[in-house]
């Protein structure tokens, strides 16, 4: 038979007021152990009202578990979760998922197959409004006007996921959770829906947490991105924060393509195999500097030798070897070099960050 059920039990019907912080969603020290293995190791996170947080991380890092804890589908072993300044989960209290006013979109559309599209969208509404204008409005929002009488099985995968989103939005929840909602769709459809969902969430002024393992998706959809690694939040910030000023080596390598070059730091400048690189934070001695491939310009010179060229069409990466370490260098279009050529390298980006190895 099945494993232990989630430890969801009784809790006071009236939520208790927690420390108000002005955040639509606040988490403090959230921990969860599943099957003897710690999955969440003390999560602190705030999502201001009206913003979208992309929760980014590799599979198995605990992001879905965190989302389920917020939803009330799982109960944390420690820590506090507050929604709109009401504690929904804490040591003494646990609000059942149906009382949290949180909308959720799952990986699969999870539409009720026995109900029409309209019946699905109206499912979370008060009885009197179940087939009224609110259903039509929600469907219009996702571009499915007039589909209310169709059965979910007659829709394509992308359309089903839109209905699922309309269903979550129709109830006007205080918070919307999206758990990798596009992972089952093919690439072109994904790209299309990404933009659409971003527009929708902004138009609705919704507060949302969007879970994904895809960095591009996280950057496109999130006003802010929280990178989760191994059960902990590694960094929270705007996409530019994460990309340009990663808080750790791990963040730098997970988010985007990065050269980590050995260097000698002297205050706000470092000597690297690609020359002098300005530093955002002063450092001294032996360090590793994060250098994005597009911040390295290739020119005529004698600094490095071309080992390989990865040609992608719209751009290309020249893999070079400079002073014995590999340096990746991104150029637009097709590079005017061949394997074995000697070229010059030059740093052309903003001040970067350095870590002591």
């Amino acid at each position: 038979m099945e494993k232990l059920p989630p430890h969801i039990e009784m809790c006071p019907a009236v939520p208790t007021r927690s420390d108000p912080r002005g955040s639509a969603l606040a988490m403090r020290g959230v921990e969860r152990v599943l099957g003897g293995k710690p999955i969440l190791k003390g999560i602190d996170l705030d999502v201001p009202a009206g913003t979208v947080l992309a929760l980014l991380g590799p599979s198995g890092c605990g992001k879905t578990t965190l989302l389920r804890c917020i939803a009330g589908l799982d109960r944390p072993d420690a820590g506090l979760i507050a929604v709109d300044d009401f504690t929904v989960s804490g040591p003494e209290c646990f609000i059942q998922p149906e009382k949290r006013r949180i909308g959720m979109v799952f990986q699969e559309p999870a539409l009720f197959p026995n109900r029409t599209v309209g019946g699905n969208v109206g499912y979370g509404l008060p009885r009197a409004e179940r087939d009224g204008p609110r259903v039509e409005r929600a469907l219009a929002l996702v571009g499915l006007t007039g589909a209310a009488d169709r059965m979910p099985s007659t829709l394509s995968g992308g359309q089903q996921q839109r209905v699922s989103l309309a269903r979550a939005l129709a109830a006007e929840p205080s918070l919307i959770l999206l758990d990798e909602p596009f992972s089952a769709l093919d690439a072109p459809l994904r790209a299309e829906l990404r933009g659409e969902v971003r527009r929708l969430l902004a138009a609705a002024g919704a507060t949302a947490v969007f879970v994904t393992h895809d960095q591009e998706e996280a950057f496109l959809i999130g006003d802010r991105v929280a990178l989760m690694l191994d059960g902990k939040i590694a960094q929270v910030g705007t996409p530019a924060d994460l990309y340009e000023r990663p808080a750790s080596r791990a963040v730098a390598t997970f988010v985007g393509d990065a050269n980590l070059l050995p260097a000698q730091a002297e205050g706000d400048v470092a000597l690297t195999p690609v020359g002098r690189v300005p530093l955002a934070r002063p450092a001294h001695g032996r360090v590793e500097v994060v250098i994005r491939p597009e911040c390295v310009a290739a020119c005529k010179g004698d600094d490095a030798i071309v080992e390989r060229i990865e040609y992608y069409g719209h751009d290309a990466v020249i893999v070079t070897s400079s002073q014995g370490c590999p340096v990746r260098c991104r150029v637009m279009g097709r590079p005017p070099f061949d394997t074995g050529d000697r070229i010059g390298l030059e740093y052309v980006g903003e001040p970067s960050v350095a870590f002591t190895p």
Partner: protein
Amino acid sequence: MNWRALGATALAVALTVPFALPFAYLLVRNGQDLGGLWSALSDDRLVGPLLRSLALGISVALAAAVLGTSAAWLVARTQLRGRRIWALLLCLPLVIPSFVGAVALIAAFAPGGLVEDLLGIGWLPEVSGFKGAFIVLTLLTYPYVFLPVMARLRGLPPSLEESARMLGRRPIEVFLTVVVPQARAAIAAGALLVFLYVISDFGAVQLLRYDTLTRAIYADRLLDPITSIALSLVLGLLAVAVVAMERRSSRVGLRDQARMGTPLMVPLRSGRIPAYLFLVLLIGFSLVAPIAVLVFWAIRGLANGSSDATSVVADPGMIIEPLLSTAGVSVLTAVVALLVILPIAFRSVRRPGRLGEVLAGTVVGGFALPGLITALAFVFFTLSAPGPLGALYQTLPLLVLAYVVHHGALALGAAQSAVAGVPARLDDAARIMGKGRLRRFTGVELPLMLPGLAAGAGLVLLSTAKELPATLLLAPPGFSTLATKVWQAAELAAYEEAAIYALVLVAISAILTWFLVVRPALRSWAVTPVAGTSSTGVDSPITSGYPEVTAP
């Protein structure tokens, strides 16, 4: 097609013929006497029993659907303690044959019975008729709904129910608006099996004196055989129609989506006491109470002894003879059934096609026909047949033949899976190494198939050991099984004696059921079902391969 393949096909077809005999006989016999058929069908002798059969079948099916579905939801979806134990206990009423359940109910309310003893009341309610039959059959058949619904709930993607909860609906609303519609096909399949069980039931309605079709057929068989045969045809058509419906309904609607993670368990909170009370009462009345009543009478009988020296109460050693008869005839039937079924299974699996389906369908049809009708058809056939065929009446070979025709389908599913489980490559490999057909069969295929075949034979054994109507009609004079002993004692109101035989029968049935049905089911529940492979969980040759629907 070479000569050998032709021979195998001919053998399979020939072995299938007996399974079609009872129904064919009913058709021919009624066709020869259309006037008699018409007069039997157009008057009260048909309408009353038919309506009573339908009323009982429909009401028991509905009640079993409600009980079985509620119990499955409580066990699979709420924070109940001891989930595995409850699931196991809720299946166990399957081991009690309907006539034993009826004996227990009658004996409980009989003068001097458990109810009078415990409550000390002089006035006892009337338990016979519709009321008693409804109670006994509902309590014994709800597992036929419980099992497929459990399997379905296991296969449901948790995100459906989670979505509904996130959209603000309380667990009970989620149950009614999401779970029940999703489990509808499983509930319907289970309810149809219950309906079939009830309209085929002979023991319970006969003992509780509720005049359904089976009771009318049995009562008329000697004095008014024309009516009896006409009613048999009506009941047979009804049963076959139900099976056809069941097969169709189980074919559609049970496609599972990918299922991920463990389902959300509903906290019971203030519903905790009613929930446990419901399960305790259900198991109490369907399992504990009947056995307690039997134990009560058996102990009282053994303590007081009996003036009748031929009774098992006076001499417990007398249990040996019916016990050995039951075991012997059941083992014999299981072996014969396997020998008959194996060529049919081979033909239908190795050469899939229309003919294979017809053969398998005919075998299942033999199972769909109520045991009473199968037996009656053989009785009338042998009694009216001349010479050597007529001499078969009430002989052991004919009894075994009737058992095989009625229970063979129980082995068919298992045998088909066993045959399908042997890769055809192995046969090719052995052939290249120069082994002959017989050597290949005994050396390669048979050892691989043996566990599956044993399971199939075991199901035939279990059902034969509990069989009543065919044994009553076809057993040689002086040949008694445990089932007929229970029956005879119950008809004489010798409850002490009936209880002893019934307890032994239930014990044997429980042991066999544990090994053949419960353990495999528990083992399959231990692993998460793979997406797209939904089994209804009901052990029936009608839906799947591992049956346990035994005509009472």
